[in-house]
């Protein structure tokens, strides 16, 4: 039932000799016992449960469009307490440093004066938000909510692939997946000592509330509306936090104070959780054609009458080309070595790196610095001679526009699917996105869980849901659970 022929050099469940890793023994036995028909049955009830809950995204925008669920892969991904301790510390360190970095570049710019990062890298970026210059957000915090994408390389080491400091999404799937797991495999869940994830909305609420002086702050979540693909998550978080779910048309700014229009008149908002790109939030300051935002919002923000989370202008810190500098940023602000390494990155803007990139195109992944969602990427090993030649020309023309990274072997994990006309667990590539929130005093808290995304297509390294990706419930274990859990408690 377990097919490990596609396993990467590092597989999460199977060691080098093909033996099941200690922490996976209980899960392996559980699924082996269920048999294929038992597992198929579980898969069906999981899918039905997600469909009924409306945890879906619409493929067409009209009301009758086909609805699909974000595929849920049955076998949970396990993370031991030791592994987690490192991830958690690494993320706290990273977010703390990036917060200091953002506060610095929008004020004194010491890091630019020191010459550690070329000024053009920051000030020339179209993601640098001039409107944030000299603005003092509460607590000096710019990153209130972050999602950090991690991968595991051939040696099993966790590395940072990308930071998401603007509108990281996916946390609702973390909570929903756990609810599904507890419904369809309570015995297995009960046999491990798994850390809960359902407290996330409260974590988020408390972090956001800390930015308001009010005893009972009014928190609202600004959504682009029901047709946004992440709308489910917006409604989920608002509902779970007891916050107002608002659209631009529900808000107005008067005398630099943000209000929402209610049936009893207008009511002040203290904290606005933005689930909208910066360029759309205020037509007076950013894109004038935006109907999704609130005219005057940035004035209210600048006057200190409302907290925006995340702060506008964070894009400059999760930019692909800045990524290469993040280890230096951590050392500069914290005087510590980074706990989580990054993937080695070559910058087209550095002459030495550029020369290397031009010579080794076939060994690298090349990414444009200003695009996301997998657009414009060249995977050197998969490209034809002609494509390589064309890309070389583009790289020479605009070197600063590209970065290069050695092709990474993502770790694999057993995933239940159909291959060669039979249903079984096959090895598929995965990544991990843990979520963190930051309070006004600078405390960063990481949710002990995360979104594990799976590339369900054979051999694919792309985990995005739009590219046929699925997700897994991610079980972060309490210390010592690996010793006591397997077979220790009965099902």
């Amino acid at each position: 039932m377990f097919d490990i022929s596609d396993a990467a050099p590092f597989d999460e469940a199977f060691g080098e000799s093909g033996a099941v890793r200690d922490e996976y023994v209980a899960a392996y036995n559980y699924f082996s016992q269920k048999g294929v028909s038992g597992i198929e049955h579980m898969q069906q009830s999981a899918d039905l449960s997600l469909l009924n809950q409306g945890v879906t995204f619409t493929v067409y925008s009209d009301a009758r469009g086909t609805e699909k669920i974000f595929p849920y892969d049955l076998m949970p991904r396990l993370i031991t307490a030791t592994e987690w301790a490192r991830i958690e510390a690494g993320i706290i360190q990273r977010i703390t440093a990036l917060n200091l970095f953002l506060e610095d570049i929008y004020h004194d710019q010491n890091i630019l004066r020191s010459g550690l990062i070329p000024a053009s890298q920051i000030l020339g970026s179209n993601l640098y938000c001039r409107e944030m210059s000299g603005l003092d957000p509460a607590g000096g915090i710019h990153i209130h909510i972050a999602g950090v994408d991690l991968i595991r390389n051939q040696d099993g080491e966790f590395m940072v692939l990308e930071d998401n400091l603007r509108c990281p999404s996916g946390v609702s799937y973390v909570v929903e997946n756990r609810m599904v797991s507890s419904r369809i495999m309570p015995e297995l869940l009960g046999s491990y000592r798994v850390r809960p994830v359902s407290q996330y909305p409260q974590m988020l609420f408390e972090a956001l509330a800390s930015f308001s002086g009010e005893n009972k702050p009014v928190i609202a979540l600004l959504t682009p509306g029901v047709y946004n693909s992440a709308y489910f998550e917006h409604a989920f978080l608002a509902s779970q936090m007891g916050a107002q779910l608002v659209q631009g048309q529900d808000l107005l700014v008067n005398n630099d104070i943000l209000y929402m229009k209610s049936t009893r008149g207008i009511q002040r908002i203290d904290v606005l959780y933005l689930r909208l790109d910066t360029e759309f939030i205020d037509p007076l300051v950013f894109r004038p054609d935006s109907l999704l935002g609130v005219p005057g919002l940035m004035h209210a923000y600048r006057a200190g009458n409302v907290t925006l989370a995340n702060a506008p202008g964070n894009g400059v810190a999760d930019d692909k080309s800045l990524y290469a500098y993040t280890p230096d940023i951590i050392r500069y602000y914290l005087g510590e070595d980074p706990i989580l390494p990054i993937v080695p990155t070559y910058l087209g803007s550095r002459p030495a790196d550029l020369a290397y990139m031009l010579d080794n195109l076939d060994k690298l992944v090349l990414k444009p610095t200003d695009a996301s969602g997998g657009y414009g990427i060249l995977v050197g090993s998969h490209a034809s001679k002609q494509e390589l030649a064309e890309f070389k020309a583009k790289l020479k023309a605009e070197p600063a526009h590209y970065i290069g990274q050695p092709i990474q072997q993502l770790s694999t994990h057993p995933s239940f699917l159909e291959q060669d006309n039979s249903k079984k667990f096959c090895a598929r590539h995965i990544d991990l996105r843990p979520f963190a929130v930051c309070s006004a005093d600078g405390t960063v808290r990481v949710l002990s869980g995360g979104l594990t995304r799976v590339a369900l297509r054979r051999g694919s390294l792309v985990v995005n849901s739009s590219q046929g990706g699925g997700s897994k419930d991610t079980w972060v274990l309490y210390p010592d659970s690996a010793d006591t859990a397997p077979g220790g408690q009965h099902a």
Partner: protein
Amino acid sequence: MLSRTAHSLYQLGFLIERTENIARILDVNSRMSVEHEVFSELDVWSPILEITDNMDNFEEHYGEICEASVVRLLLADSDNPYSVRACLLNAREIARSVRELISEEIWLHINLFFHEMEREFSGGELRRWQHFSEKVHMFANAFHGMIYNTMVRGDAWQFMRLGFGLERARMIPRILQIKYHMLLPSPEAVGSPLDIHQWQALLRSVSGYEAYRRLYQARIEPAKVVNLLLLNPGFPRSLHFGIREVSLALREIGMYNEDQYRLYQHTERFLDDLRGGAASEDIIAMGLNDYLSTVNQRCKTLALMINKTFFDTITVTLTDQQSGSLTIQIPQQQQIQLYTEQQAG
């Protein structure tokens, strides 16, 4: 509560109520035409199209009036705003947009029924439509049970109740008009077995047959049926009951500006007119059909006032530079129209 979400909840309330009412109207007709063989000269389907404002729509798209095509128009035609399917599609979209304000059970209930309906209609044939129509009743009844049992009696509940109450009040005259439109072949037929059969069918369609028998025993007299459906304050599908729900909801929502106060006063006056014996006399003096038209008109006015008061404008107190303050009503921005509001008034 946000004006926009208040509007959504109000719409959700009246869409669920309307879904149920369409199924009920179809039931009346189906029941009235059970003895179709015997009374084949009766056209039972034209009145229903008149009452649901669908006559033109029907003639344009369907042609010959028969059970199959009327049923299709009123149940499965998602282009017709007055169909079960369109109402449920909209109700679900709205429920999705206010998910954070309704309980998890309610969302699940709507979503489950939506998927069931789509499966039902995907086959093309509607052979078991009576069966489906019963399911609609059960869906709506369970919905009421759920909001009663799971929702806090806050603004969200009150706006939903406002939608329910108003739509219910609007439907009763329509159902009574079916009987009025269904002219008997001759004046002698009044009081005939066919006449009685039709009144019974009408009562059954509003779950009122048992109530009637309990109150007035077995003999069916049109005046008493009319009394029960329009004026009885205790019967949950009467006009009186619906308007009282509107009034109670408005009182709980509260009055924060003059328009809201005036709306409440207006509703109370409507309610006063339904109380006591005055209304029965009005009905006799005006004739049933004229009285029903008046009621329709009043309900329509009420709907317009509700829209203006809560959803189209908003009260804002502005502060000028000399710190003087001014309270004004400003228009709400245009909402995205998910459905045709023609029937909503």
